């Protein structure tokens, strides 16, 4: 397939980033120090990303400000290590905005993910979806605090967080193929992260 969007990278050390054309964010750079990055998506523009992030001792907030008719399509597969504190905020400040944020997180560190969908009065006819799935392993502590503030009636907005470990049936299924427990867990963890990144048949998405 042909990529029509401009492919860019975003360094979260920057305080203000303007997106005034359709972009695909290929790479996210997270600074070592505390950051507060504000990304403005202009009217009729979209920001799309599919990224596997390896985050270690990351502390900061990313706030997306979406204008009318803009589209934010963010899918992050995150592996945390060390101690992390990450905030992802989306402010919808215009009409007919589409926002789809999906984060799959796992790892062996500590992490606190704060998500906020702030849907302002002007955001009529907008669609906001935010989903955080955490695969919690034995030696980690990942927490998520989801928040949704809706100031208009004329939107479709939902958010959800799930935290789970490997299920008995998943591990049994893998074992039925003769795959050992350690290899099964590794495959399932890779699958959990890859599931939002891989190309889905019949779906016009990036690999």
């Amino acid at each position, binding site marked *: 397939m042909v990529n029509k969007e401009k492919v860019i990278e975003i360094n979260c050390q920057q305080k203000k980033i303007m997106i005034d054309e359709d972009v695909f964010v290929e790479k996210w750079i997270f600074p070592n120090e505390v950051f507060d990055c504000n990304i403005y998506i202009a009217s009729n523009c979209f920001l799309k990303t599919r990224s596997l992030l390896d985050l270690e001792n990351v502390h900061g907030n990313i706030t997306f400000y979406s204008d009318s008719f803009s589209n934010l399509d963010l899918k992050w597969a995150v592996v945390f290590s060390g101690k992390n504190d990450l905030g992802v905020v989306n402010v919808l400040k215009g009409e007919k905005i589409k926002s789809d944020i999906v984060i799959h997180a796992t790892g062996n560190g500590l992490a606190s993910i704060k998500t906020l969908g702030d849907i302002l009065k002007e955001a009529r006819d907008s669609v906001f979806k935010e989903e955080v799935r955490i695969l919690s392993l034995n030696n980690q502590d990942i927490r998520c605090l989801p928040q949704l503030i809706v100031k208009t009636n004329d939107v479709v907005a939902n958010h959800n967080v799930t935290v789970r470990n490997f299920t008995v049936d*998943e591990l049994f299924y893998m*074992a*039925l*193929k*003769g795959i050992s427990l350690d290899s099964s867990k590794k*495959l399932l963890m890779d*699958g959990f992260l890859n*599931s939002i990144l891989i190309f889905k048949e019949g779906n016009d998405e990036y690999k």
Partner: protein
Amino acid sequence: MLEIKDLCVSVLDKELLKDINLTINEGEVHVLMGPNGAGKSTLCKALLSYPSLKKEGEVIFLGKDIVHLDTSSIARLGMYYVMQSPIEIEGVKNAELIRSALDERNEGIDIFKFTKLSNSYCEALDIPKNFIHREVNVAMSGGEKKKNELLSMLFLKPKLIILDEIDSGLDVDAIKVVAACLNDYMQNNSCAILLVSHQKMLLSLLNVTHVHILGDHTIKKSGDASLINEVLATGFRNL
């Protein structure tokens, strides 16, 4: 090939199966029938050491007592189980799963041979060649999932194939394809099949040698293929 002696299965001290005795030899096709809740799937799962099931008795598979062996070791010995409802594994592709399973058996093959085999197996199962690159059972119909499980089976070359309601979700043409695939596999490999099914068409297409009726937590009656017609004509209550 498989000898089950006085097998009792329980979960949390509740007896699910008792005094199961069954012998399956190479080349045989055994059918397990019984009313809903009789324990057919439990027996299949117990043979493969499903975690919560407690077993007592003996299960000798290829000369080895596997009653206390873990699932993956039993699978690597050559037992293959197709669940009634195969689960979906998001993000893991068939090719990754099968190659990992082959690697665990030290039977890894190069990508060219793998692709060639995959294409021929997909053709035999009447599924698109790209099935091998799809996520395991994700967004597949019931019938496609069953065929997908058989795709893995053809790579792993098991000795004993346990099929739990393989016919559910299969249309008429798909049943013929699955039966042809199983018959062909039986012809070219030293193996046996234990099949849970009440589907007349599938059973008529396979060379069924033994039939067992499960009820009251044990095998109540065994016989040859003629028992299938008896069951289908009169039901289980009259047996």
